[in-house]
């Protein structure tokens, strides 16, 4: 399964973190730091796979892509194929690109929720559930439509929300 998805800026700032295996929150910062150290030490145009047994436990690997100012990192175990994971990063980045029209780091910084929505349409509980970026796009747009619908309808019965929160 996929154990974690990370997007880290070249300034070592995390832009998206999602763990599919439980990691204690107090350890998150260390994980990001060690992954960043690992990646920043690697020159360009070398292979995209790194064994990370020391960080995420035995048998784990990560695959990463360095695009502009961001590292896209997928951590996975022996049940995933290395090249397939590399393709999946490509799908993820393509989808972001389509959703934000030429994605840049700022889009990712300011769209915390949407990023998670996109990722959740692609991976659930560490399993890949969708690999077509068009399909993911469609689902995300559908969700946005539903949300808008919901917000217009739910403004009317304000008394209900008040009663609910009391």
């Amino acid at each position, binding site marked *: 399964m996929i154990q974690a998805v990370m997007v880290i800026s070249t300034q070592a700032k995390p832009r998206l973190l999602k763990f599919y295996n439980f990691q204690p929150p107090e350890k998150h910062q260390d994980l990001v730091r060690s992954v960043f150290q690992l990646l920043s030490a690697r020159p360009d145009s*070398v292979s*995209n796979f790194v064994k990370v047994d020391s960080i995420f436990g035995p048998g784990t690997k990560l695959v990463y892509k360095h695009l502009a100012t961001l590292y896209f990192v997928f951590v996975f175990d022996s*049940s995933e194929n290395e*090249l397939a994971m590399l393709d999946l990063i490509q799908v993820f980045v393509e989808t972001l690109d389509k959703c934000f029209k030429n994605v840049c780091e700022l889009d990712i*910084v300011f769209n*915390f929720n949407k990023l998670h929505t996109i990722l959740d349409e692609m991976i*659930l509980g560490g399993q890949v559930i969708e690999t077509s970026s068009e399909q993911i796009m469609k689902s995300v747009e559908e969700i946005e439509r539903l949300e808008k619908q919901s*917000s217009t309808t739910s403004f009317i019965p304000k008394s209900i929300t008040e009663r609910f929160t009391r």
Partner: protein
Amino acid sequence: MASTPAAPAVAPSLVDTLFQRSLNDLVKSLRADPSAAGEAVAVARALSEIHREIRAPDAATKSVALQKLTYLSSLHFAPVGTHLLAFPAIELLASPHLPHKRLAYLAASLSLHPASLSLLPLATHQLHKDLSPSSAGAAHQQHLSALALQLLASPAAAAAPDLPVHLAHDLVPHLARGSPRAIAAAARVIAASPSAAVPVLFKPLAACLASPDPRASTAAAAAFCDLSAPPADATPFLPLAPDLYNLLTTSRSNWALIKVLKVFARLAPLEPRLAARIVDPVCQLLTRSSAMSLTFECIRTVLTALPAHDAAVRLAIGKAKEFVAADDDPNLRYLGLLALGLLGPAYASTVNDCRDAIVKSLGDADTNIRQEALHLIMGMVNENNIMDIAGMLISHVAKSDPEFANDILGAVLAACGHNVYEMVVDFDWYVSLLADMARTLLCAQGDEIGRQLVDVGLRVRDARPELVRSARTLLIDPALLGNHFLFPVLSAAAWVSGEYVDLTKDPVELVEALLQPRTSLLPISVRAVYIHAVFKVITWCFSVYVGRLGDSGMAVDVMFDRLAADQTVGSESNVALVSGEEQDIGASTVRKDPFSHESILYMINLIQTTVGPLINCNEVEVQERALNLIGFVHLVREIQELNKRNVADGDKPSRLEELVKTMQTVFCQELGPVSVNAQMKVATPDGLILNENLVELAGIVSEDDTTPSTSIFFYPCSRHSADTRDELAVSIDSSSLSEHRKRHGLFYLQTGKTEDEPNDYPQANDSLPSSSNNSVNDDKLKTAELVFAGKKSTATKSRPKVVKLDTEDFLSSMMPSANVPKEDPLSGALRDVLLGSDAKALSSQRASDINLEGMLNKTSSNESSSQQIENLGSHPASRSSSRTSKQQNHDKEKGTNPPESDGKEPRKHRSSGRSGHRQGKHKHREKSSTQPDTIPQAPVIQDFLL
């Protein structure tokens, strides 16, 4: 707005309370000051704000606060009190307003953790509601259930065992629809609590595998791939083989094929007929597929799971070599090397074909590729090419960066040292290689090199001359003394040259090297070894010198006069000073003959000048050894003085001889390797209860044991009440040691040889100091024998004998068996479902079965524990033997009708798998019980497969 109990120091301004900051505002404020301090201030301010807002009665305010909190805890690692986040998140899960609900689900799935799990059951009802069909629109409903599945598959839910139990049934309709989301969630739920989820979810999940919808079958293949991943036992998934096979031959999806191949790679070793079935489809995929990921997966499957199919393996190797040759893509090159690394030794020659490419990869810019190349090269090593390969690698060390250089050194050391130097034939070569390695610029493997130098010395008698030569080159080089990585190597070299001093060509030079000024740079422990080595060298020189005097009948007086003269000089200034002339004598004459009068004198003087000051050293280790050495030197001189005054001239040589012989005796005992399990061989004597509480002895100990003694032997009061006092503290000095040994031989290592041990080698701790004189000669004889008795003869040189203890074999053979997969709850639960038909029929009987099983366990566990104690001493009985004894026990239990017991056995073991968690104590026994399980399963698979 709500009142704020945890309000910030400054009361919130009107603006603050009226206009809530959105997440975007928060992000902007965080970015306003990118410095760490600025960020910390912004986070703290935001947190205090959130603390106030999150208590708001208004759902909108609360949800925005929750969103900000989630953001801060996820990306800014803000420490968030678990309940602060969990309560509002669970509260908002129930919101009818979709955006709020989504935020709540996101917060819950990202940030809930075991500390807040007590709250998660509160969400159970809401999850149940969102998962079940409602009046809302289809799209809306689907979205709600997607959210609920998301939370159900999150790591937080996996840690809350109740949640899956309650919600497993809600997943079933979703699985029936073939929703990939539900399939993925079901896999997580099963993994989280197998015992509860498997009976409900496994069959619907297995049905998805045969679903006509490719999305469902792909997701199901992925789910089973995940569930059968290594820590778990793949055996229960064998019955799925037909469906998986179907998928393998018909599916178009690369994702599905990859997952199916992965599952087959795990199943094939378990079921011999499977490999023959899948080899053709896999080869077809391998030749036809254009997707690199699938090709690579095929290669990996063939190389790991189908090693017996030669044509397939060759095809896979061919593809892997194409990968290795891909110059423009480092990923393919890396994976190609990785794949070749999977090959067993049987195909080492095939890998050898692309050795050039692999060696070239050692210099690659990519650490991964370098590492894999190194791994591959080490895999090629055998006893014929180890010299070439090690030489080539060592030459690479100089060209590599420090980290990789040490990886290379470590790999060479590990390969050569593997299984007690199994592959090394020429130990002279190996010893000099060790010395070369130590001298490479970036070496940080001093510990291992030092250990191996000593180890080779202990084990391989024939390597000692070269060892001493190599040690000399290491010791005389003053430059090495500055490198702290090499201290362990130098320590080993010093020990080796002291221990095997009789092989030294030039002891004077050795003493000079050991006492050179730069030794002050060494750490205390190593210095102590150096001084002790000097002690051994000088003792040996004396013995040779005295021996010669006896032979030649030369006048001893001359020497003693000189010694005495020197003594008078020395006594004036406590520390003997070497006068200028004497040093000249030393320099000119010592080179000619190291055992001449002058050289002995020179060495003694050198010792007194350099070691003398160390008797005031504040480190006890060094001080003690320095005192020993100086004491010995003084002793030699005092004999002379004594003799001059009182005793007749004729006694002098004999006194000296006596002293030298005594000293020689101290060092004559040859040290051998000690078995790791030596202590286990000591049988526990009757009447000694190791776990007995010794508190009552404390009084006696504190009364009598005034001198601190490291060795206190306790005996059961009941037996030795009379002489306990005498025996409490036994200090080990040489005389009482042998006495003690005589009395309590039981506690010492047995001197009787074990079969595997070479019987011409001294036991490690054999204390026979009296027989020392002969032993030197004996040793020579034995060495001669050994040379002739060389077992394996290769073209150039026969391999010398390497001492190897039986326990080392035993240990290495134990290693793999320690990894026997444990009976995990998942496979136990799965087995129940997969063999469900008869298991269900048996469910009424099961309760009674378990009772019986428990009884059996109890009786035979007693037996096995007593067995274990017995086994400590001897070789542990193999598992099969303990199994047979158990079987016998079974038979004994139901001695009346033995034929029936055979039929019932498998069932019983199955139920034992189920009750595994309760009977954790008997895990060991259950492991062995998985074995018979495969037998009743075999026919089940046969039906599906053929």
